[in-house]
């Protein structure tokens, strides 16, 4: 009797006994049924009730004019989506999200990669990749902001950007620039200020990710490139970067997903979407539309639009990186 099943191929090799778990012994005992009901059924029940069904319902709601008060809801087809086409705030929010979707991944990943490069191949130019002295300390410090909750980072940076008594204006004062700028209240600076907070939050995470990836690059490859006379910059950009491409594309995707959300940062740092909606994003507008205006149908439609864009972005990143592989 084979006891607990193998960790073999997912496909059931034993075609003769499709209904039987592989380690089941000869038949499905009551104990085994209870085991499966508990071990598989319980987690799946939670998952279906609290994750799968809300997503399915959201898509349905987006085609109705539901306002939450009663069971009254009319199917209005694409009505919500058509309304979004004419909603100026939604346009503003979506445009901000799209800008963030480009800016955030590019800044965070370039900076993360640059720092990872300095830590790893900043050391000796001979032999295998040998990190810079104190590499570990830099890594540990850089990663720390990642473990701080986003809300706390939002509040922290709201302090830093405060017009009077804030750290930024204080620092500017030290170098002789007396400024009383309310960085988050000024539409010219607000979005950039939010972006900087996110960069501060996330760079260390990607730096650590890239450090590990660079360390996994075979040392012969580095050695060969060095023999060919490649300097550190060329080594980083032309040799290492293509090898860790998979990591970069995953990182791009996740930063993109984060940029298309941004609810926490915006809601905490610029409540209401900022002065003249300069930092409005779809997720925050969705929240307002649903829970302050009770327009659940339209809010769901926004969610669907954003989800579709997220999906398209993820696919696009994959396609672009694949293409480079062929070239």
């Amino acid at each position, binding site marked *: 009797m084979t006891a607990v099943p193998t960790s073999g191929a997912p496909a059931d090799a034993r075609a003769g006994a499709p209904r039987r778990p592989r380690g089941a012994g000869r038949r499905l005992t009551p104990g085994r049924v209870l085991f499966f009901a508990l071990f598989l059924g319980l987690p799946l029940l939670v998952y279906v009730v609290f*994750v799968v069904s809300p997503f399915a319902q959201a898509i349905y*709601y987006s085609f109705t004019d539901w306002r939450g008060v009663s069971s009254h809801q009319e199917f209005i087809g694409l009505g919500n989506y058509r309304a979004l086409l004419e909603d100026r705030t939604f346009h503003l929010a979506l445009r901000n999200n799209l800008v963030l979707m480009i800016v955030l991944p590019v800044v965070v990943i370039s900076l993360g990669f640059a720092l990872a490069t300095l830590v790893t191949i900043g050391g000796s130019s001979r032999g295998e990749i040998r990190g810079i002295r104190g590499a570990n300390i830099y890594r540990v410090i850089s990663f720390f902001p990642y473990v701080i909750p986003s809300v706390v980072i939002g509040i*922290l940076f709201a302090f830093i950007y405060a017009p009077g008594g804030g750290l930024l204006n*204080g620092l500017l004062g030290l170098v002789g620039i007396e400024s009383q700028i309310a960085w988050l209240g000024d539409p010219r600076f607000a979005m950039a200020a939010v972006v900087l907070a996110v960069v*501060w939050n996330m760079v260390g995470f990607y730096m650590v990710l890239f450090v590990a990836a660079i360390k*996994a690059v075979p040392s012969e490859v580095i050695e060969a490139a060095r023999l060919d006379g490649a300097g550190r910059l060329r080594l980083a950009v032309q040799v290492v970067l293509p090898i860790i491409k998979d990591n970069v594309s995953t990182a791009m995707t996740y930063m993109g997903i984060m940029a298309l959300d941004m609810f*926490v940062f915006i809601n905490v740092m610029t409540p209401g979407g900022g002065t003249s909606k300069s930092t409005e994003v779809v997720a925050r507008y969705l929240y307002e539309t649903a*829970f302050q205006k009770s327009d659940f149908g339209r809010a769901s439609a926004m969610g669907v639009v954003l989800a579709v864009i997220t999906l398209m972005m993820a696919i696009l990143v994959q396609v672009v990186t694949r293409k480079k592989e062929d070239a």
Partner: protein
Amino acid sequence: MSAVSRDGATGPRAASDLRGEQDPRAVPEGPSPSRGATVPASDRIFAGVSHGVLVIWALIVVLPLLWTVISSFKDSLGILADPFALPTTWHVENFARAWTTAGIGGYFLNTVIVVGGALVLVMLLGAMCAYVLARFSFPGRSIIYFALVAGLTFPLFLAIVPLFFILQSMSLLGTYTGLILSYVAFALPFTVFFLFAFFRQLPDEIGEAAAIDGAGDFRTFFQIMLPMAKPGMVSVAIFNFLGLWNQYLIPVVLNTDKDKYVLAQGLANMQAQQGYQTDWSGMFASVTITIIPVLIVYVIFQRQLQGGVGPSTSK
């Protein structure tokens, strides 16, 4: 954004790479002694520049935190007067005020209950589910696995409106139970995804030996498999802890009872009312109270965290 999608950048191999073994190259400090004498000048210049850049970045990371901690000991006037001055008197009472008057203590307790409960539950359910999916074959197994893992990509904000009404219909709005169940559900895909890979790697012989000894399915899991999976469980638990501790949208929408606010919610609420009260020092003290526990957890588990996001996405 799914509950733990910040952590999603890690890949299937992370858990397996975390069984405590140290990569010999993991501590790449210092040149080897034999080469020390012959370091070319260009190397030293480059190392100098690198250190310069890295030190600047480290300062950018550390300064705001240091500033917050120091400011939390000043009074509000002192903070506004000069952001750089050290406190003239150290106002420890800021912390007492934050803890009791501002209610940080209560929020802290709520967070511990909700995050702790959700963490235990999601690790248990996730391990059970991953174990069955990884070590038994039955029809529909792949479909269930992919349906679960697909949850990693679902954006949370799309689900939040219906989730509100689902909890309302179950009378779970503003309750610990409702919040914990939602946390568990949204952390489940990440947990199953990682533990699946982990249970897969456990050797078959163990389970066979257990069966020969007459251990049933339940005993095999709880007394043999689960202890063996402990290293993987620890690293997944750390990332789940960070993800859940970081949650904001779920509690803001579903946790409507002010007495049950979690830290993130309570802090954001205090911040929103700052305009009227301007208790800067209390606010700084609250932020410090929130950061310190994570700092301690981070220092203790620093190696697991660094490794956890380490070899991850590389195939």
